[in-house]
């Protein structure tokens, strides 16, 4: 088989960590090759090197057998390498077509004006060729995350990518969207493209890939053919121990109502009604999972509860304490903590050190401060504890949060929020971007919180996660809770129907609604 990419002996050192340690990696023409490894193993770093965002300290790169020196993304693009980042880099008020041609616009005859007609035609042809279902004329902020991702892929293809790097493309997608993406990748490979895929989801690895390269702590463990391995083996190879892929939990000891939401209403960022009367109760000692397709109001619901968005009607009550439209500070003090959905926007101040980030939301509370004086000795110890307890991979607690790998940032946030020991823990996509070992641990900690008698509200787009963790599952559709089911009495199909806006027969749909 022809090798399109060969990386030999790549070493990359960051202050205090060896992100890549003598890594060998090859990509064959027409294959889908998964890069699998723990959080902080060095996958993103390796791909950033291939895309020219970082320079390796040592090692060589060959593209189509020729030794190359990739000094920046423009070099990479010229060599036919395209990369889709996990967080997209699209211009939000531009159309799909405008975003795709950005930076390589087709010009009219005299070279002054952008030829939009041609652009739209080109984009349409490209989309049809690979089975992308996107409209070149729609505006980015009006389309779903899944669609935005397709735009990113199209953008890379438009620039002539033969080799496509996708860094955790499925972390933000719904199951249907993941399936579509799988199909698109297959089409691309059929056309002779080669794909490097980073993902933590073992199911996808098994379904989508031809080969897998496993990295651990900066070193390559092995490269295997997907058909020769199974999920458990992969998990063990990447973490270095056996991983329990199912959540173990005792029956819930449910207590009093902790969070009560009554007829809650709110607008979205375009000032259109988004929450249309949500009713919900979460009790102590239970995990209530919210299932739903992305964009049905989950984000807004959490934002209203945590005080980041105004409610236009209805009430949020925590243990008899009306928190509707109170300031975030008061809500935190009342005992609600939140693992936020967007770790870069809300979860961390990327340029603060981990120490400083460790007390975000509690910085003005004892023992972290007294009066206005912060006690950095105590805060540093707290940061160290979070890092140790949750196995956050970092050289020390003084590095700025932006230097951590995505998964480790997520672990750190989860550590901070769970350790706060709140009355109500809202976990929004708590394991987004985590490796299986870390997921196992976070799940264990969430169940522990529940067993301690706390109330846990879990919001996740991953049905598997919702079903594995929750005691009860509330399905959200079009800004309303359309059904609340016992987790052990329902199944994926029932939930799927509700999530798509359908109804179960009356008795079942009502059976657990108090």
């Amino acid at each position, binding site marked *: 088989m022809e090798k399109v990419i060969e990386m030999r002996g790549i070493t990359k050192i960051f202050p205090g960590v060896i992100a890549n340690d003598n890594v060998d990696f090859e990509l064959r023409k027409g294959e889908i090759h998964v890069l699998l490894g723990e959080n902080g193993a060095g996958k993103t770093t390796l791909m950033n090197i291939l895309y020219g965002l970082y320079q390796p300290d040592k090692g060589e790169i060959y593209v189509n057998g020729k030794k190359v020196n990739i000094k920046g993304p423009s070099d990479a693009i010229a060599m036919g390498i395209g990369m889709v*980042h996990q967080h997209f880099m699209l211009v939000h008020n531009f159309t799909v077509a405008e975003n795709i041609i950005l930076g390589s616009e087709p010009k009219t005859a005299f070279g002054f004006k952008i030829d939009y007609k041609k652009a739209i035609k080109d984009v349409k042809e490209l989309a049809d060729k690979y089975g992308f279902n996107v409209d070149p004329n729609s505006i980015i902020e009006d389309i779903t995350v899944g669609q935005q991702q397709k735009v990113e892929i199209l953008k890379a293809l438009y620039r002539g990518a033969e080799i496509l790097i996708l860094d955790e493309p499925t972390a933000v997608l719904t199951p249907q969207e993941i399936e579509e993406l799988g199909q698109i990748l297959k089409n691309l490979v059929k056309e002779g493209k080669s794909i490097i895929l980073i993902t933590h989801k073992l199911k996808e690895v098994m379904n989508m890939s031809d080969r897998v390269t496993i990295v651990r702590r900066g070193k390559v463990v092995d490269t295997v053919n997907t058909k020769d391995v199974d999920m458990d083996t992969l998990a063990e190879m990447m973490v270095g121990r056996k991983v329990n892929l199912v959540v173990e939990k005792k029956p819930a000891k449910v207590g009093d109502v902790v969070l009560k939401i009554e007829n809650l209403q709110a607008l979205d960022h375009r000032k259109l009604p988004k929450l249309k009367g949500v009713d919900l109760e979460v009790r102590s000692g239970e995990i209530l999972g919210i299932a739903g397709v992305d964009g049905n109001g989950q984000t807004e619901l959490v934002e209203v509860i945590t005080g980041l968005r105004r409610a236009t009607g209805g009430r949020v009550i925590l243990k008899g304490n009306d928190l509707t439209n109170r300031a975030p500070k008061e809500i935190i003090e009342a005992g609600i903590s*939140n693992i936020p959905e967007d770790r870069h926007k*809300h979860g961390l101040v990327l340029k603060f050190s981990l120490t400083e980030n460790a007390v975000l939301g509690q910085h003005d509370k004892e023992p972290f*401060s007294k009066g206005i004086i*912060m006690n950095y000795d105590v805060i540093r110890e707290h940061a160290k504890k979070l890092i140790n307890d949750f196995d956050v991979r970092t*050289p020390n607690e*003084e590095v700025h949060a932006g230097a951590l790998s995505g998964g480790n940032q997520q672990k750190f946030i989860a550590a901070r929020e769970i350790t706060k020991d709140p009355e109500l823990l809202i976990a929004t996509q708590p394991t987004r971007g985590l490796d299986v070992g870390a997921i196992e641990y976070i799940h264990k900690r969430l169940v522990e919180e529940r067993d301690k008698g706390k109330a846990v509200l879990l919001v996740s787009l991953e049905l598997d996660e919702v079903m594995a963790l929750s005691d009860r599952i509330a399905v959200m559709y079009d800004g309303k809770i359309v059904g609340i089911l016992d987790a052990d009495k329902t199944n994926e199909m029932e939930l799927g129907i509700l999530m798509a806006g359908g109804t179960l027969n009356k008795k079942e749909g009502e059976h657990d609604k108090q």
Partner: protein
Amino acid sequence: MINNKTKNVAFNALVKKAIDVLMFPLIAILLGLFVAVFFVMWAKNLGFIDGTATLFSAIWEGTFGKRANFIETLVAMTPLIFTGLAHSVAFRTGLFNIGVEGQFIMGMLAAALIGLIPGIPAPIHVTLVLLGGLIFGAVWAAIPGYLKAKVGTNEVVNTIMMNFIAMNVSNYFVKGPIHREGSASSKMILESAQLYRFLSPSERVNVGLFIGIALIFVIYWLLWKTTIGYELRAVGLNMHAAEYGGINSKKNIILAMVISGAIAGLGGAAHVAGTIHKAHQLVGFTNYGFDGIAVALLAKSHPIGVLFSSLLFGGLNSSARILQKFRIPKQIVYIIQGIIIIFVAADYIYKWLKEKKKKEAIKNA
């Protein structure tokens, strides 16, 4: 062993960071001087060596070389400490308070007014003068701060307008109620309102310098050791995360403006109470507020850095007169300052671009 190793790594990282931080300002200064040498060569028709020698000895004499000049350097530096700090606080919170100039003027006006009130014993009178300046400056900054936080209007535009209003308000008083006949300034403030000139009454350097230096450490402490600074910096770096963490970004925007304005106002009051003892009619701006932008930029908005960059700019300003003695046009000084600013700005743009690239890399975690 392992602990030692990580410590070493941490230490190396620190040294690297220090070099990283200090390198560019130093290069900028050297380049500024280097380019200035060519202007000297051109203006005086000298060779490179002679030109360098002439310029450097002139600047040296003008800043440190003679007692009188060194004193003037300290005098010129003093207001820049305040305005540099004022800009630094705003920058750290993600704001650009161009209004430091106007807040400084309001501080001067406060001192000129309060300094005329008779019958107050000295220590109290001086304190009132400084306090008055602080409050005038704070109020002058609070207005655009409030508008920014509540209505969302741009602080840059509003503070520029406030500068002009400050200039005219000041002139109204200086030309009217407190005008001293036959002069272009206000009446002299009373002796009880003056800051102590610690060398001799005729040498203008005064306690204001020490107040400024003390303030440097206060602001450092405020920014990095208190919850107030934590919140200000959090809002400056990531407003969304700050809000999520229960930090009220609107409150902090106003607070940052108030602190910035208070520092500027205090600086203005100290300038009148210590150095000039009266307020002048303003035909244009004093420029202390604007020079403060350069001071803060060169200092990378770090209070300790302000100490050095205000010394540099103060020194250059005070050496301008001496240069003429060497028959070097004093504009050379402004050229040096301009070049330093251009290079520092270029550094910011370069960092911004690099940051953008890095963001792509980080985002993709």
